[in-house]
């Protein structure tokens, strides 16, 4: 487990370093060091390093971390390895509200964007809870309702884009791309006040997840207050994923992939799993962003195309194996005739 942490952190650091050197404008390590520390370095070097690449890498780390942590939290809370903010409608809920905000209140400050995305994420989560609590969070019911919600929010977003003023819509479309093009220090400043308390709260509430993951009955037996604690955990997810989405635009699969990977690598407490998933998520986003910048340079790919390329088949594989488990459970329940 310690080894897994070591490797992931090493991988993340290498990805960050590579992202500093590589790109359309390639820089040798010595140039990068000089650009950071010396005022005599060429202005272009200084600009690209300190105003473009470093903030972009840091934002990649923070947003990836947020998605990874959110993924594990949702997967444990819903006892569902398929859970991911993107697959449960959180992305599209945030997307709808951010689009409305950008189209109808374009003069308002960018600082409000994470708050708006958070509200959208909360809206999606509240709707999901209302739709699925009756079915005791059965994995398939949660997923299907999440997909339905996603499509609903997505369609509403489309309508807003169709009827809204086209210039303002264009800024919403840029945001909805799901990438890190053009981000810099201001976005990092917007992100931090959400990220730091969100992560701290996630680590503190991690032990709740250990209990909730068992079953409703066992959790109650150990003294869990299911309703209240679910709202707390889901709010933290909304803080982390909402604020990350407000910078990156809708991102799918990062939480799903890093959550599942971390759960398989860590045999330990949820706190460790959450941290590891954060590092994995950060690594994925930084790497994907690097590839997105490199592959068709000078143009940029949407970074989340690349993540989806990995995420989609992984989800399909998990659905197939889940389906097998569900069938076995159903057969067992039939054989024993319930209570």
């Amino acid at each position, binding site marked *: 487990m310690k080894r897994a942490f070591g490797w992931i952190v090493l991988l993340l650091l290498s990805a960050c370093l590579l992202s500093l050197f590589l790109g359309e404008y390639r820089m040798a390590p010595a140039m990068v060091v000089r650009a950071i520390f010396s005022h005599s370095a060429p202005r272009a070097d200084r600009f690209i390093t300190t105003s473009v690449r470093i903030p972009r890498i840091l934002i990649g780390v923070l947003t990836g971390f947020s998605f990874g942590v959110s993924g594990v939290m949702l997967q444990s809370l819903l006892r569902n390895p398929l859970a991911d903010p993107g697959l449960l409608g959180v992305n599209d809920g945030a997307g709808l509200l951010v689009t409305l905000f950008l189209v109808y209140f374009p003069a308002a400050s960018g600082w409000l964007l994470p708050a708006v995305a958070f509200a959208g994420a909360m809206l999606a989560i509240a709707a999901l809870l209302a739709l699925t609590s009756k079915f005791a969070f059965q994995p398939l019911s949660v997923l299907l309702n999440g997909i339905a919600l996603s499509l609903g929010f997505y369609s509403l977003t489309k309508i807003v884009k169709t009827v809204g003023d086209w210039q303002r819509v264009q800024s919403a479309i840029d945001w909805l791309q799901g990438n890190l093009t053009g981000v810099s220090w201001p976005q990092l400043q917007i992100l931090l006040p959400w990220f730091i308390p969100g992560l701290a709260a996630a680590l503190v509430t991690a*032990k709740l997840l250990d209990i909730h993951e*068992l079953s409703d*009955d*066992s959790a*109650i*037996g150990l*003294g869990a207050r299911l309703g209240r604690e679910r709202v707390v955990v889901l709010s933290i997810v909304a803080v982390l994923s909402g604020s990350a989405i407000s910078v990156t635009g809708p991102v799918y699969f990062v939480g799903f992939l890093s959550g599942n990977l971390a759960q398989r690598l860590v*045999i330990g407490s949820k706190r460790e799993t959450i941290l590891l998933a954060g590092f994995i998520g950060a690594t994925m986003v930084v790497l994907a962003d690097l590839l997105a910048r490199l592959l068709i340079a000078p143009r940029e790919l949407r970074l989340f195309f690349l993540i989806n390329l990995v995420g989609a088949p992984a989800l399909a594989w998990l659905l197939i194996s889940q389906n097998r488990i569900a069938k076995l459970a159903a057969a067992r329940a039939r054989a024993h005739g319930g209570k």
Partner: protein
Amino acid sequence: MTFPHLAAIDLALAYNSEHPVVEGLNLVIQPGTITALVGPNGCGKSTLLRGFARILKPRSGSVELSGEPLETMDTLAVARKLGILPQRPVAPEGVTVRQLVLLGRYPHQNWWQTSGTEDVHIADAAMRNAEVLEFADRLVVSLSGGQQQRAWIAMILAQQSSVLLLDEPITFLDMAHQLEVLDLLRKLNAEAGITIVLVLHDLNLAARYAGKMILMKDGRIAATGSPEEVMTKDLLLGVFSVRCHILQDPVTNRPFCIPIDIALPD
């Protein structure tokens, strides 16, 4: 150790808006005994246990622990006195026996605390008691049914509660594993004086292990008392509509029933 006693007072329990499954039920669980809840399918015995465990909130009436209604007590304080093993518990895939057992320490910890050395010692003792210490670092899902059940019992032992509620703890186990789990419960009862309430399907095993049997039918108590008082031809005929011979178990001298046939309604 003081022995909190569990009581149902005019208790009604229901799922959602349905007609109550259990109604007007009054019952006191004798501290320090093994009590078996028995009865036909759908008689409300699991529902009653879920009511005792505060998993199901009373429609009316109340469940009291040492005279205090559960609903007004802090749920963590209840968890320190009352341990619950639900029907067919499922451990998450990547959880080892030791981790599972340490979760039993949750009601004793603050909201920010993680397991300290004292918790580890208590968990070790619980695993030794439940005879799963040798599997401590194996994944729960990799164990046999009986071993898994013992791991769960170790978890509720780590809770250090003096009342254990178990919902059909042996239903899906083979004969050897059934005895293994029930012997463990009997040992805990005899050595530590832990009060045990369990739902059982097998009348003969219930009569063999329980000091007291509660026979239920249609959400009400049909009979309660020692196995000798409850395992009678007339009561079993009335509750199950099955004619039985009642013999004496040659191993334990407890009553033992052999069904003859289903009594057709006149």
